[in-house]
């Protein structure tokens, strides 16, 4: 049977998947577009990767909601491709497949683990602080993350590293407009973060952070800023801002030291606890630390060959977008541009008749996922619940438990304490 319109499956509802849906909708008013999402809730990196105190960057969700509300794009949440549906099922049901699953894993620091000093990925840390249901930090039996301790090392000099420094340094009462998970933040900072050492491999002039992100840290009223590794650097805006902050911040209670041209090489057992050994142009120095947080970029969380790995999804109808395609480069805006380009390639392939509408579309897989599916209305119930239960001034209080998300999405009767009532499902 030859269809009259394209049936398109996008895998992942983060920014790249949603931008791809926007541009594909512009290309084809009549295409059937479904965005599959493994979680019951949409927006991926915008919800869980953008720092919770950067609500401005999260405001793109208003555009994405419009896809589902006005543009006839279907949200198929709580469906993992490779588990709930095989990729082969998907490939048979849809003409065009756009993997947009991003890069879920923090790139590791090549140092030995230390029993008394956790090495934590920045992505995992920010996901936890964004209330992700799968918290991947060292935790106590009650599920709360273990305190980071007083001395934290942050390795990396990009915007994600700056997010981590700010989230650990900013006074707890200054997260007013954010949707941060206060309980997890307080647990991580319970011992009181007193000193943050930031290690960046590049000289300051080549550091990857945006100046505005750097200045946001330098402007915190409670911090005392110092630095090393800039003596031989030519003047630059970042150095000017840093020197000014150094001069005026002598009384801050929390110390932040930026080390430029510095490369951590080992995590050692020192006489008083863990030591991070760091190589600079002046030789090797050791720093006492309680935790190390790495912000060194991201890679795919699933090994190639795993049925859920995007590396296993290939074919003439498959067009990956975003971080999956470019190796984790660029901001949300840059990935909008990349989604636009990919949508252009798809449209060109259709124009050249390399792609022809022939697949049955969502209807062919609907029965198989009927029991698990959370549709857009289900997400709207979660959204309304999160907006209704937050403290004043906060945008939302995220549900962190998958079972609870599902209960709210399905409008199951719930006890006053928020737990499911057994046997309430119909």
């Amino acid at each position, binding site marked *: 049977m030859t269809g009259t319109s394209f049936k398109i499956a996008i895998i992942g509802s983060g920014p790249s998947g949603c931008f791809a849906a926007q541009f594909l909708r512009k290309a084809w008013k009549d295409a059937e577009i479904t965005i599959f999402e493994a979680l019951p809730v949409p927006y991926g990196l915008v919800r869980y990767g953008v720092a919770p105190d950067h609500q401005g960057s999260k405001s793109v969700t208003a*555009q994405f909601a419009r896809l589902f509300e006005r543009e006839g794009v279907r949200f198929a949440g709580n469906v993992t491709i490779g588990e709930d549906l095989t990729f082969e099922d998907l490939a048979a049901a849809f003409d065009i497949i756009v993997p947009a699953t991003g890069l879920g894993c923090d790139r590791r620091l090549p140092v030995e683990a230390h029993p008394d000093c956790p090495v934590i990925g920045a992505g995992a840390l920010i996901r936890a602080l964004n209330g992700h249901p799968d918290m991947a930090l060292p935790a106590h039996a009650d599920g709360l993350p273990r305190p980071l301790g007083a001395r934290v090392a942050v390795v990396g000099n990009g915007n994600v590293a700056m997010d981590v420094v700010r989230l650990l340094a900013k006074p707890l009462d200054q997260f007013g407009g954010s949707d941060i998970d206060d309980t997890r933040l307080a647990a991580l900072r319970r011992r009181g973060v007193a000193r943050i050492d930031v290690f960046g491999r590049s000289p300051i002039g080549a550091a990857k952070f945006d*100046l505005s992100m750097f200045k946001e840290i330098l402007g915190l009223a409670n911090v005392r800023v110092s630095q090393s590794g800039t003596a031989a650097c030519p003047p630059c805006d970042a150095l000017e801002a840093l020197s000014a902050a150094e001069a005026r911040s002598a009384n801050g209670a929390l110390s932040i030291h930026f080390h430029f041209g510095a490369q951590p090489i080992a995590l050692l057992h020192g006489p008083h606890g863990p030591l991070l050994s760091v190589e600079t142009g002046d030789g090797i120095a050791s720093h006492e630390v309680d935790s190390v947080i790495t912000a060194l970029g991201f890679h795919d969380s699933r090994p190639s060959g795993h049925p859920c790995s995007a590396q296993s999804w290939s074919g003439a109808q498959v067009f990956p977008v975003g971080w999956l395609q470019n190796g984790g480069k660029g901001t949300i805006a840059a990935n909008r541009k990349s989604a636009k380009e990919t949508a252009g390639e798809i449209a060109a392939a259709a124009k050249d008749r390399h792609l022809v509408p022939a697949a049955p579309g969502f209807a062919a897989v609907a029965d198989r996922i009927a029991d698990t599916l959370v549709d857009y209305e289900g997400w709207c119930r979660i959204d309304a619940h999160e907006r209704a239960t937050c403290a004043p001034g906060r945008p939302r209080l995220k549900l962190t438990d998958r079972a609870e998300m599902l209960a709210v999405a399905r409008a199951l009767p719930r006890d006053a304490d928020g737990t499911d009532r057994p046997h309430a499902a119909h």
Partner: protein
Amino acid sequence: MTKILFGTESGNSEMAADDIADFLNDNGGEAEVVAMEDYDVADLAAEGFAVVITSTYGEGELPETTQPFYDALKESRPDLSGLRFAAFGLGDSTYETYGNGIDIVAALLAELGAVQVGETGRHDAAKTVTLTDAATGWAEGLQPTLAA
């Protein structure tokens, strides 16, 4: 036909442009949304009236899709004395350069002889007012000026 020209980085300015166009079209106007990157600045002098919308990028710079429009105007320097325009800007007050982009574009249009009508509208992504409410509210306030 009122041209609504937008330059964007993350797509939010395009959404604001769509909302403003919807409002004008629903209220007896005729508006069309055009991306600055797809617009020939040679046509601007003859538009009569136009709405310009842009966000701000990085350290108060113009978004990648606004910059070529700005550069083309700066280079060709058309006589815009017959043009009236309204301006709406997007920004994020988390950063100190909040909302600069639209001021840069509006200043150039004025320098080329165009006359701005109404106040420059602004939306702050860090505040809780939605972009749609801010854009539509601004367009509503603009209406009497347009009718005059």
